[in-house]
């Protein structure tokens, strides 16, 4: 993005220059650590592009999860080690590893790919900078001290290493700034890597009298250098991301990289708290792509509307797909069937387009691809009513959202009538509910109307307790309850079993 011209080595006759591909110096990676100052210039394949990015994302997501779980740095390091070795190995120069260059290249490239993916919004940028700093800190701490010192020297941070002679001269003063207690610290002083910086560079350390200052120079011990390096890293990364964000609109490319980048950044969105009502398949129901039309009679209005829009247009926009895919996943449709369902539903497009534009999305929802946490948690949780009501209000052409909230009264009435709700009293009730913002009440009112005979029977027979008939606050709960009520005759024993399970989970 912010390519540095000096790096561009013109090997050709200048008269031919305009016809030639730009050529770059091969990037060298003398150090294990990288401040990612120069963007990569070599060619990589699309597969590499995606795979490397996903691998790095996995690491970052896991790191973030560690911080959410309040793991100590030591625990985090322990937890991350196998993952890092697997997905993003980075060996010390001294290890003599044959893949050294490749490892570092991957590290370098994946960082820049993710920069592209996460530069778009302020929120993503901040988050990305935070987790990248965590990763950098982890590696910085694990680095061989000599290599680390060599790396720090290359950063041009305006530091002056303290000579052995000076260390010895100032040992008594320096000793007071490392460690607590009164043990012998003379040797520690000599072992420590000290550096001199202008005190104004480290006001925080001055403020707390954590470093020795003489003649305006602060003597910073090695471990405090870390915070300085990290500060510098974060600061530079934030600036670079800012620049990337400004350059993004000029990324004149949209069918190869953009979808990948979009997926990557979406994966980074925090996982939802989850559908507690268990997404397990309901016994006896045939959960296949073909059967969805049949099952759609049990869908709540939001999903009914999505289904009808899909059938009408042979297409759904992004959030519609997301909401519907998650719902289908929640009712127990597996990934294969779901892909079949979407492929057949999108019957106006070619296989190629489907594979390129939609397939990844669906797989991602199921946790088949994406970062490690996404995969291990099995993708996103089905959206709850709360989420549908509050997030991503639908715009023109969108079919997602909650009809009770996002539809006009006319459209809602039309939808309800089409779904078999013709009772004037019910429609009046729905109108009042939506007007007083009680969208749940409206939805439950419709549910009760549509299932009133079954519910009466269930209550009379004692099949379902009052607790199981409480207010529905999740589309998948709506479906499950509806399906069970309508099929009470089908398999009572299984039902009881099922209900028991659900109960235990509550």
């Amino acid at each position, binding site marked *: 993005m912010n390519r540095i011209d000096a790096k561009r080595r013109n090997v050709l006759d200048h008269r031919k220059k305009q016809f030639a591909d730009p050529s770059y110096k091969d990037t060298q990676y003398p150090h294990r650590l990288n401040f990612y100052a120069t963007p990569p210039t070599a060619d990589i394949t699309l597969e590499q592009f995606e795979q490397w990015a996903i691998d790095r994302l996995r690491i970052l997501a896991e790191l973030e999860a560690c911080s959410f779980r309040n793991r100590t740095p030591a625990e985090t390091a322990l937890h991350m080690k196998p993952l890092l070795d697997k997905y993003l190995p980075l060996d010390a120069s001294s290890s003599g590893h044959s893949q050294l260059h490749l490892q570092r290249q991957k590290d370098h490239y994946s960082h820049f790919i993710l920069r592209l993916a996460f530069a778009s919004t302020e929120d993503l940028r901040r988050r990305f900078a935070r987790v990248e700093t965590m990763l950098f800190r982890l590696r910085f701490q694990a680095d061989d001290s000599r290599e680390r010192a060599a790396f720090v020297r290359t950063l041009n941070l305006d530091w002056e290493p303290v000579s052995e002679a000076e260390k010895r001269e100032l040992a*008594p003063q320096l000793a007071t*700034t490392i460690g*607590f207690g*009164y043990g012998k610290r003379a040797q520690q002083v000599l072992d420590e890597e000290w550096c001199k910086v202008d005190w104004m560079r480290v*006001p925080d350390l*001055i*403020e707390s009298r954590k470093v020795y200052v003489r*003649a*305006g120079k602060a003597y910073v011990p090695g471990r405090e250098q870390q915070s300085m390096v990290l500060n510098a890293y974060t600061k530079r990364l934030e600036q670079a991301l800012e620049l990337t964000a400004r350059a993004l609109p000029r990324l004149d490319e949209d069918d190869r990289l953009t979808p990948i980048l979009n997926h990557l950044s979406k994966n980074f969105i925090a996982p939802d708290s989850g559908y507690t009502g268990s997404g397990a398949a309901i016994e006896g129901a045939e959960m296949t792509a073909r059967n969805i039309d049949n099952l759609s009679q049990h869908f709540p209005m939001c999903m009914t509307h999505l289904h009808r829009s899909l059938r009408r247009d042979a297409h759904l926009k992004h959030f519609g797909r997301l909401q519907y895919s998650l719902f289908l996943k929640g009712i127990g449709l597996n990934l294969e069937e779901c892909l079949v369902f979407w492929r057949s539903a999108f019957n106006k497009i070619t296989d190629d387009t489907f594979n390129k534009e939609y397939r990844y999305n669906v797989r991602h929802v199921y946790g088949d691809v994406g970062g490690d946490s996404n995969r291990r948690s099995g993708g996103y949780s089905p959206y709850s009513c709360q989420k549908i009501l509050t997030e991503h209000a639908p715009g023109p052409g969108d079919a997602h959202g909650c009809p009770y909230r996002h539809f006009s009264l006319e459209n809602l009435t039309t939808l309800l009538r089409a779904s078999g709700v013709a009772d004037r009293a019910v429609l009046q009730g729905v109108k009042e509910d939506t007007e007083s913002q009680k969208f749940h009440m409206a939805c439950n009112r419709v549910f009760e109307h549509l299932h009133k005979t079954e519910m009466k029977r269930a209550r009379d027979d004692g099949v379902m307790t009052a607790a199981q008939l409480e207010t529905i606050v999740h589309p998948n709960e709506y479906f499950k309850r509806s399906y069970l009520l309508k099929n009470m005759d089908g398999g009572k024993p299984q039902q009881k079993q099922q209900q028991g399970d659900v109960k235990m989970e509550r």
Partner: protein
Amino acid sequence: MEEDAAPAAASSPAAAEEDIAMAEAGEIQGVVEDAKPVQPPSAQTAEDEDMGVEIKQERRTELKLEDLFAGMDSDDDGDFPSSSNPINGQEPVEADTQDASVELLRIYYQRFFPWRYMFQWLNHSPVPTNDFKHREFSLWLHNDAVMRYQSYTTSDLFRKDVLRLMPRRIEIGPVYTADPRDRKTFRNSTAFQPMAKELCFDIDLTDYDDIRTCCDKANICSKCWKFTTMAIKVLDTALREDFGYNHILWVYSGRRGVHAWVCDKKARALNDHHRKAIAAYFEVVSGKQGGKKVNIRRPLHPHLSRSIDILKDHFQQDVLETQDPWQTPDKADTLLLQHIPDLQLREALRKKWESSPGRASSAKWADIDALAHTDASGALESRDLLDAKQDVLLEHTYPRLDTAVSQKLNHLLKSPFVIHPGTGRVCVPIDHRGAALDAFDPLAVPTLQGLVREIDAWTDADGAAAALAAVEVSEGTAAAGGSSQDVKHVQDWEKTSLKPYIEYFRSFVTALMKDEREAVVKREREEDGEVEVKVESLDF
């Protein structure tokens, strides 16, 4: 409004008075920050604490006198409810003295105030630069209005304006990115920002009240002045050795404190973040009421161990012997016993002192070690005990700073050489060097009345002899100061006791300007060889 009034040199006093009135009226109607009527103390204290406190203090003491006569309750802090009466009562008296003091002030500003060196001090160069032109001055007028954001293009205009307005107090603010008088012409606030100011420190003896036994509040004597002396030594050493600053001007604030102006170019450019850091570096005694006031990490930071070395002797002499801070049992308890970590030892000491009331502080201090040695558990605790003793020492000697003054770039501070309105003393610079610092007596500094008397005495006496002596002396200073000036013409300040202070200030300013000029020459030499000539041509 003020743009009209300021440049027009007011010829007749009457016209000047009118101008003031107009300017004030305009200011008061305009922005509040420009002119703050000082009369209701509460309104003004809210805006700037440091000056407000000082004024309040003055008023408080005045009130006390009044109260003595009136037999009123005196524990009121001088705020509105009870203050209206006494103030009304003393107003006629004030008016009389005010006329006289304005006349004296006029003489002072005309004949004594070191305009030239003040200008050079703030300008860092002989020709006016933005350092001076964009500097904010705020003038406190006699009718208790404050004119903020005044600025002057030359030293002469500054002098004229001061003579016109006769402020009883002049404060110096930061250098702004633009002329402070034009501040309202900028639409966005970023165009008018404070850019540079000396790094300032403020030490006030009222902060030492819990360990001062000789005086309290705004009163001082040579005994408690020692606290200031210690503070100056510690701060001055640290600023020079630790932070590498060379141009530190210590100024007596006229009553009960000192100000430090660190004038190095680097120090002037510090931002608020850095200033806060440096202020915290020097904050050891935290002002919490009761309990342990010193909380520092061990091992001691080099700055603190060096400070303890500096303060040790002062603690023994000036605190334990002179102040005797632990005379009373409860003082001994809160200031000393509370710090003793070992409960057994604490009880033993308490018992011992109860049996011999009136035991001197230095004896009590010695008792700690004596008892600790005899105590069996003493060996184990010796490190803790030493730490505790260090804490006690620091609590009784380490500088107590008003950090608000140091932290903000745009904080105003009273200018040197201003007359303190309460005491009439001149805010003179203090020589920080060893013997001179120890010898400084705040009660003996020149006062406004004293200076006028001196100058009268001088002209009355046989001019020739005095002039001769003055020439001799000024020759000496010319040789010392290095700048060739006024050997023939003896200036009025040279005829008075103000002389050594202004000479000290002059040498300070000369050294500062020399450093600034060298920095400029060096930089320009690096850039371009020929600019050097230009720089030299600027030399006077």
